[in-house]
C-alpha cells in the first residue's frame, strides 16, 4: 500500500508529522473518520480508481497544467522563474484536484451526500462542481460574512445546484464554516462524506488531500526536466493558508533538501498589527479542527480570528505537515502583507498578462525577499486565477 519511500515528512501510521497531526475528534465523528482511515489508501491504490481519477484530471480538469517560463518576471526578479499554472484548472484553482479525488472516495464508501466548508468560495465551487458531475447532493457551509464579500462564488455554487448554508456562529468566517460542516457531519454520520478543502483536519485528511494535490509536483518534475534537463528547481514557492497547494507543490521534493521549500503566509496589515494571518509568526502549538498544529490563539488557548485581504489565506492554523516543515526548518516561511501581495498581483498582470488570485500573489511577493541569484531556477505555484478578486484589485489599481 505504501508506495512512497519512507520519509521523515510522510505521515506516521497514527497520523502524525513529527509532533503535529493526529485525530483529535469527538467520539461522534470517530466511526466516520475511522472508516475513511481504514479505507483511503486501498481505495486510492485501486487501479480502477486511478484510471477514473486520471481520466477526470485530464479530460475534465484540463491537466497537465502548463509550466510557464515567465521571461519578463524572470528579468525583473533576476532569476529563472517558472509558473505552475494551476489557475488554468477547471473552476480556476488547484482545489478541484482534491475534490475530484474525494468525490471518487465518497462514491466508493457508498455516501449519498457531500458536505464542505469554504472561505473564499473556491473550494465550495470545486465541490459543487464535482457533486453536479457525480449527481450527489451538496451542502456548503460558508461564513455569513464571507457570503457577503464573495457573492460571485456563492452564485456559482447555487447555479451548480449546491445548497449554501450561512455559518452564523463565532466570527462567521472560514473557521466557523469548518465548525458548522463538522457539526453537520456529526448529525449525519452514515450517509455523508465531508470533503475538507485543505491539508487540515483529523488524520487521514491532511495525508489524503496532499496525495490528491501531489499531482502538482509530479507534473513539475516531468515538465521541468523536459525544459531544463533537471527535475529539481532550487526553490519551490507557494502560498499557505491551510496549505493544500503548497503541500501538492512540495510533495515530491520533501525528501530532497537541495530543493528549498518556501511558503508565503498572509501577514495582513503586518505581522504585529493585530490584523494578520501569519500563523507561524504568531502561533503556538495547539489543537484545531481535529489536528495538533501551529495555531493563532490567546494565552488561554482561545482561537484568534485571523485577518488577510485574501479570503483563502484567512485561517488561524496551518496543516500539520506545514507545522512540521516549519518546526524542523525544512520549510522557509515568509510573511507577506496585503500591500505586497496586491503589488505582486498588479506586477504579474502587467508583465505576463496573467491576473493571479490574491492567494497566489502572496507567493509571487516572496520572490524579491529571497535573495535570489541569477543562476537560480525557481518554480512558483500559481494556485488560482484572479477573476474572483477583481473587485478587490480595482479598489487599489495603481
Amino acid at each position, binding site marked *: 500500500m505504501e508506495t512512497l519511500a519512507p520519509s521523515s515528512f510522510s505521515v506516521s501510521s497514527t497520523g502524525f508529522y513529527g509532533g503535529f497531526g493526529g485525530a483529535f475528534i*469527538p*467520539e461522534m465523528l470517530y466511526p466516520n473518520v475511522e472508516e475513511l482511515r481504514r479505507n483511503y489508501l486501498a481505495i486510492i491504490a485501486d487501479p480502477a480508481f486511478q484510471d477514473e481519477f486520471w481520466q477526470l484530471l485530464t479530460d475534465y480538469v484540463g491537466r497537465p497544467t502548463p509550466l510557464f517560463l515567465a521571461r519578463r518576471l524572470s528579468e525583473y526578479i533576476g532569476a529563472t522563474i517558472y509558473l505552475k499554472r494551476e489557475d488554468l484548472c477547471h473552476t480556476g484553482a488547484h482545489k478541484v484536484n482534491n475534490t475530484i479525488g474525494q468525490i471518487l472516495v465518497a462514491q466508493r464508501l457508498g455516501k449519498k451526500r457531500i458536505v464542505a466548508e469554504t472561505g473564499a468560495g473556491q473550494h465550495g465551487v470545486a465541490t459543487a462542481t464535482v457533486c453536479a458531475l457525480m449527481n450527489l447532493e451538496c451542502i456548503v457551509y460558508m461564513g455569513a460574512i464571507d457570503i457577503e464579500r464573495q457573492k460571485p462564488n456563492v452564485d456559482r455554487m447555487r447555479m451548480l445546484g449546491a445548497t449554501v448554508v450561512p455559518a452564523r456562529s463565532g466570527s462567521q468566517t472560514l473557521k466557523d464554516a469548518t465548525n458548522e460542516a463538522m457539526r453537520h457531519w*456529526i448529525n449525519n*454520520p452514515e450517509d455523508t462524506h465531508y470533503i475538507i478543502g485543505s491539508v487540515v483536519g483529523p488524520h487521514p485528511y491532511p495525508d489524503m488531500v496532499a496525495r490528491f494535490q501531489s499531482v502538482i509536483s509530479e507534473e513539475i518534475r516531468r515538465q521541468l526536466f523536459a525544459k531544463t534537463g533537471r527535475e529539481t528547481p532550487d526553490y519551490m514557492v507557494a502560498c499557505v493558508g491551510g496549505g493544500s497547494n503548497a503541500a501538492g507543490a512540495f510533495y515530491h521534493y520533501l525528501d530532497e533538501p537541495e530543493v528549498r521549500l518556501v511558503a508565503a503566509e498572509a501577514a495582513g496589515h503586518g505581522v504585529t498589527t493585530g490584523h494578520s494571518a501569519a500563523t507561524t509568526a504568531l502561533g503556538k502549538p*495547539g489543537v484545531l479542527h481535529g489536528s495538533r498544529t501551529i495555531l493563532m490563539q490567546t494565552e488561554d488557548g*482561545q482561537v484568534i480570528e485571523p485577518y488577510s485581504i485574501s479570503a483563502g489565506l484567512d485561517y488561524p492554523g496551518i496543516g500539520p505537515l506545514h507545522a512540521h516543515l516549519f518546526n524542523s526548518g525544512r520549510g522557509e516561511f515568509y510573511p507577506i502583507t496585503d500591500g505586497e501581495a496586491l503589488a505582486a498581483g498588479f506586477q504579474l498582470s502587467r508583465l505576463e498578462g496573467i491576473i493571479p488570485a490574491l492567494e497566489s500573489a502572496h507567493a509571487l511577493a516572496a520572490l524579491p525577499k529571497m535573495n535570489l541569484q541569477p543562476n537560480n531556477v525557481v518554480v512558483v505555484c500559481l494556485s488560482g486565477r484572479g477573476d474572483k478578486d477583481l473587485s478587490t484589485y480595482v479598489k487599489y489599481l495603481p
Partner: protein
Amino acid sequence: MQNRITRLFAQKSEQLLNVYFTAGFPSLNDTLPILQSLQRAGVDLVEIGMPYSDPVADGETIQQSNGRALSNGMSLKLLFEQLTDCRTGSSGLPPVTIPILLMGYINPVLQFGVEAFCQQCREVGIDGVILPDLPLDLYLTEYAPTFRKYGVLSIHLITPQTSEARIRLIDQASEGFIYMVSSASITGSVQGIDDPLQTAYFQRIQAMNLRQPRLIGFGINNHDTFQRACRYANGAIIGSAFIRHLEAEPVTASSIEEFVYMVRGQAILADAN
C-alpha cells in the same frame, strides 16, 4: 480519599441527575451561585463547562453561552480561582459536596498545561473531566498517567454508531461513568429521545452488562425525557435546556430549584422542608 464520582455511583444507582452549565454565564460571577443552587436543589453531580471559542460538539445554545462567557472574561485560570473555596465553604456558603466535573475542549487545557490543569483540579476538588475532542487512544497513550496521578477521572463518550468492540474498550479503559450520547447529534439539536432506534440502542447497551455505570445525555430537556433515560441508564445529563433556562430566568436559587424540580417531577412545596 475516594473519588466523589466513584463514591456517588457506589451509593446510588438510579435516577441520577447531572446538570451542565457554562462557567461565567450568564454573568462572570454566576459560576459559584449556580453550583450552590444546583446542590441545594438536589442535583447528584454537575458538569461545569470551560468556555471555548470553537466548541464543535455543541449546538447553538451552548456555543452562544460559551461565546458570552468568553466576552465576560471567563478563563480556565479564573474558573479555578472561582472554585478555590467551594469545597471548604468559606465566605458563609455551605461547602459543595457533590461531584464536580469540568467539560470542555482540549486546546485550552493544553495551553494551561495538562499537569498544571490536573494539579489545579485536585486542589479545588474537581473529580472528573470530559474532553470530547481528546479521543480515548490519545488519552491513554499521552495523558492517562497524569490524570491518574492527581486522581482526576476522564469520562468518555459513546454514541449509537460506536462499535461494540470499542464500547468494551471504553468500558475497560475509563473510570467513573460512561457518557451515552443519545443520538447522532451535537448538543441541544434533538428534541426528546423517544425514537424507536434510540430505544433499540439504549436496550442494546443495557444488555451489554458494562462495568461502568451510564448516564444518558443529549436531548434530555424535561421530566419525560429524564424518566425515559433513567429507564435505560443510571441517570441522565441536562445541558442546553438548563442554559436556556438560565437565559430566560433570573439566576436565583429558587428559579434553579424550580428547574430541577421540573426535571425530577417533584412538587416544590412538598420538598420545602
